[in-house]
């Protein structure tokens, strides 16, 4: 029997799940990082890499993509050399095929959700097997029974009250068996049992909702990168990992298109229990996202650019960047480097400044701001 406070939530992103070997690697890391440290992780899994995209094509009627999904999952399953697992995965794929065969000409959002859900459903079965393979007792949870949503297919929102009720009922048995539960991210079901999906990045949303509704302190979102960076490293190689962000900063960044942050994921955290979210890789969880920031951590956290319509803008994100002193500093940088400002937008209550700039100067400005704000260069 485990203590309730030993619970944490761990989401394993699809980019980490490529083949049988990578499922086992993830399982080993779950064991090393959590189970061996006497914690009981609730594991949230995405579909294996690329599978969701394939399934979206299947939902449009593509037989070729159905074959690709089948081949992919059967080949991952075969790596475990467990006849039981292969049969189970085969059964799920047969079911998927039956569903795919009902596709007629017209687009049916409910059917698409049902088809896409198989990506996570099978991934979950594989993850349970991988955990058992590394001697971690693991059991399946069923997102379609636990995560209740509204009926907006393709972009459903979680019904927090119904879902909290369901989750609360299984906590005790989970703690009693001390087996690591694995649940599908990204999918849920309506009260009537129709399968829904939670939209892009929905697995993060599943993870934070579970943590928040059960009052669990820590959520780990595991991906390939070590954390959220001060800028897009493809554009600015000197970008660094951001150690701490507030929910507000993270959501603001997501609003302006930051990768790896799903704004919906913060809704339960803001409304209910404010769990701490750790983003990173198995090497290190470089970024911590928490409800409140201590005063000394206020200030700019990241710079990014976004093109909306004809005029691109640069967003500088961080608690307190809307104050007059900071605004002046930014304008000074523009002034000294002779960049033109086409527009500027800032409100005292928002953790961002948006500066509309000329297309030709966009990247130059981004680099200059990053240098001044995060690399210690004097403006």
């Amino acid at each position, binding site marked *: 029997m485990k203590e309730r406070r030993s619970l944490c939530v761990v989401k394993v992103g699809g980019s980490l799940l490529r083949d049988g070997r990578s499922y086992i690697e993830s399982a080993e890391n779950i064991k090393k990082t959590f189970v061996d440290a006497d914690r009981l992780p609730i594991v949230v899994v995405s579909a294996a890499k690329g599978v969701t995209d394939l399934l979206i094509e299947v939902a449009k009627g593509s037989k070729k993509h159905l074959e690709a999904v089948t081949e992919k999952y059967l080949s991952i399953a075969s790596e475990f050399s467990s*006849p*039981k697992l292969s*049969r*189970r995965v*085969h*059964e799920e794929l047969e*079911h998927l095929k*039956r*569903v795919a*065969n*009902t596709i*007629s000409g017209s687009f049916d959002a409910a*059917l698409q959700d*049902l088809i896409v859900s198989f990506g996570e459903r099978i991934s979950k*079965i594989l993850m*349970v097997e991988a955990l058992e393979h590394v001697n971690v*007792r693991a*059991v*399946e949870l069923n997102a379609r*029974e636990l995560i209740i949503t509204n009926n907006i297919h393709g972009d459903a929102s979680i019904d927090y009250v119904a879902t909290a009720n369901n989750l609360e*009922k*299984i906590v*005790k*048995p989970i703690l*009693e*068996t001390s*087996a690591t539960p694995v649940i599908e991210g990204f999918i849920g079901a309506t009260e*009537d*049992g*129709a*399968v829904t999906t939670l939209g892009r990045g929905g697995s993060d949303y599943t993870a934070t909702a579970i943590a928040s509704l059960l009052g669990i302190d820590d959520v780990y979102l595991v991906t390939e990168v070590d954390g959220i960076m001060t800028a897009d490293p493809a554009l600015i190689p000197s970008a660094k990992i951001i150690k701490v962000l507030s929910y507000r900063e993270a959501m603001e960044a997501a609003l302006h298109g930051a990768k790896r942050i799903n704004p919906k994921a913060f809704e339960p955290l803001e409304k209910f229990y404010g769990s701490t979210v750790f983003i990173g890789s198995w090497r290190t969880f470089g970024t911590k996202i928490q409800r409140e920031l201590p005063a000394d951590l206020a200030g700019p956290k990241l710079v990014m650019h976004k093109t909306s319509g004809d005029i691109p803008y640069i967003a500088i994100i961080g608690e307190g960047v809307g104050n007059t002193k900071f605004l002046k500093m930014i304008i000074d940088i523009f002034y000294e480097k002779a960049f033109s400002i086409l527009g500027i937008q800032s409100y005292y209550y928002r953790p961002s400044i948006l500066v509309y700039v000329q297309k030709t100067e966009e990247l130059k400005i981004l680099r200059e701001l990053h240098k001044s704000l995060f690399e210690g260069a004097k403006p």
Partner: protein
Amino acid sequence: MRNVNVVVMGFGNVGRAFVKVVSLKRKMIAEKYGININIVAVGDSKGVAIKKEGFDEYELLKMSELPRSSLHMFAPYGRQEVDIKEVYRETEPHIHVELTPANYLTGEPGYSNILFALRNNAHVVTANKAPLVLHYSEIMNEARSRGLSVRFRATVMGGTPFLEMLSSMKSHDIERVEGILNATTNYILTEMHENLVDFEQALKKAQAIGVAEADPTLDIEGFDAAAKLCIISHVIGKPINMNSVYRESLSKVTLKDVLDAVRQGQVIKYVALLDTQNKVASVKIVRLPKDNILAQVGGVLNAVRVKTDATELFFVGKGGGRIETAHSVFDDVLSIVLEKVIGK
């Protein structure tokens, strides 16, 4: 704490759900009633898993994750082939739970299993209708002569205690029972009305989401609803034979029929009727005015209207969802334990 040994035969959707529900809820039941529900053996068509001291929660959850017909692979407890004698010798069950599929020609394997259980002093809970439909009196007489119980509330409106309620209305003369007793066909009709698709398309969708079986014959030819009428007739003490139930096939309903009905403010429903006054029973495609109470029961819901010489009742609830049905089976098990096993 009183240990109650339970054997489960049949491990399809309901069997899995039952095992899972027991694993999640039996601690709660133990705390509340002082009973420890011990699942000691589970069988499917190919094999059986036996653990004399009872499977623990983790084992039950792992069992429900097995692929179809592969209990024999459940190491180290799984065995090839099902020998019910061996199961009983090793586990001495108090209660037998029969969840095998219905076969209305022979009643097997449920019929033999149930008789075997009774003859070996086990109470019986069944969700399989066929043995009751074909051999109701024999089974009940066998149970009565041994002071054993046979419970089967999961067989009609499986997600509700409808049969319990009906059997408790002992002072009433029940004149008419009429309603929507089959979830699959009601779902298909609802699909046809709401999305204006033809029968085949609606059936395919029902199969895709798991509401209909791969072989839907029992549902769409009305066998399932007829069997339920037959069980209801036994419960109210006015038995009819399943063969005497007039059945229409739902596959006759075309999209044009649906459109015609809708145009006239009507809804097509697949209605089962037991009229004890006129001694007729049927499962028919009928047109109902939109505001008829049965017309408003959609999707996988079931509904029954019971008319007695004293009153009229209306009952709505989920038909055969696996989780709901598993709870009905569990409730039957618990009521037997509380009334019979502990009382002894």
